[in-house]
């Protein structure tokens, strides 16, 4: 299916359902699709599972979604930060569930979901609390943990620019989880700095090919 260029952020998120798993790009605020998140707050979907590296910084973006009480479960690698006061309060009050996943395993689980891989063995986490309940296997003398794919219903990512084919380019370290999340969700929505004219992106420089992108909306 082709890519839809949305008129605004509200249109882009209009059909997000309660109970969805939403992959949200960004590392801290770099690459965080804040305007899509703000639109999702207005849209009202609740009981969400959110997958993101952090659990909100300050009071904007993901932190605002958490503060609005829309998120039932957070899957992330690094929730605790100096400015994660919204998450900290919800967690200590027992109002949000937390699954902590090592950062590389988080990325690889989404990569697996996007690549049709049913699971993978990795060394990260062997012998730790995060191995509890997971299958271990010895391969050529090394112990590995079985990790399963992590697909999303929706991905919200931020990119520098898109073309009308949905191809994306990113900017510096704001790229982070965007390309891997784009592959892992049934519907990927990209918030971009600009939508350029056809032929406006160098095909050699495209990072996320448009096949992974369903909707784009410019800031």
């Amino acid at each position, binding site marked *: 299916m082709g890519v839809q260029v949305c008129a605004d952020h509200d249109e882009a998120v209009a059909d997000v359902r309660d109970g969805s798993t939403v992959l949200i790009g960004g*590392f*801290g*605020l*770099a*690459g965080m699709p804040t305007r899509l998140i703000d639109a999702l707050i207005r849209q009202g979907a609740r009981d969400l599972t959110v997958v993101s*590296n952090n659990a909100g*910084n300050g009071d904007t973006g993901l932190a605002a979604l958490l503060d609005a009480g829309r998120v039932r479960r957070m899957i992330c*690698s*690094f*929730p*605790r*930060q100096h400015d*994660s006061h919204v*998450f*900290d309060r919800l*967690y*200590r009050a027992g109002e949000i569930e*937390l699954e*902590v*996943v*090592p*950062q*590389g*395993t*988080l*990325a*690889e689980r*989404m*990569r697996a979901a996007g690549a049709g891989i049913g699971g993978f063995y*990795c*060394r*990260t*986490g*062997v*012998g*730790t*609390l*995060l191995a509890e309940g997971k299958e271990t296997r010895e391969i050529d003398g090394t112990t590995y943990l079985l990790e399963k794919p992590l697909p999303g219903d929706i991905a919200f990512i931020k990119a520098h620019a898109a073309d009308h084919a949905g191809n994306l380019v*990113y*900017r*510096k*370290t*704001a*790229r*982070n*989880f*965007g*390309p*891997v999340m784009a592959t892992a969700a049934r519907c990927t929505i990209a918030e971009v700095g600009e939508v350029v004219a056809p032929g406006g992106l160098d095909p050699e420089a495209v*990072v996320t090919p448009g096949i992974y992108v369903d909707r784009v909306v410019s800031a």
Partner: protein
Amino acid sequence: MSLRITDAPRSKDELAAAIAADIPAGAYVNLGIGQPTLVADHLRDDGGVVLHTENGMLHMGPAAHGDEIDPDLINAGKVPVTELPGASYFHHADSFAMMRGGHLDVCVLGAFQVSATGDLANWHTGADDAIPAVGGAMDLAVGARSVWVMMTLRTREGAPKLVPSCAYPLTGVACVDRVYTDVATFDLAEGAVTVTSLHGVARGELEALVEVPLRFA
């Protein structure tokens, strides 16, 4: 290698300088957030060391100031940084493939505790009200070719942090190769702990403090 001895404990900067001096020329290196970041300030300009940051960059430069600050260019601690000639950007799955796939020569991490057999505890205090946050620590612990720890040897209360067995939840098992502290440097290999430098502490004092059998280089 012979035992090096100096009269006074090392300051954080002296410790960072000692670690920087031990990083081989041309190495690909990841510095953990917090104190290990200081090591970058002591790398020689002509040493060719390449810094990796987990959020998707090689040839990371120093912290950005003033007009250089770009919210799209940050390090793992979310501090604005700069790019050096030769820099590249890549997504998270690639970045962690570098870390988990044995492509980094050295990582330097902080620690709550390290065991004599190289177990690392640095992500979770295990306290009931603690919010666990692992980030990339477990990936680095198993993936970097050499895992170095930078820490004070004692807690604020005076308890040793090099221990027979970690009391805190583990980050990785038998993964630490070397421990740099204010008062001594330790090499860990095959269950043996070898002291390679002493700073303001006598052999006997160190042996009495750590409760771990020590060899001296």
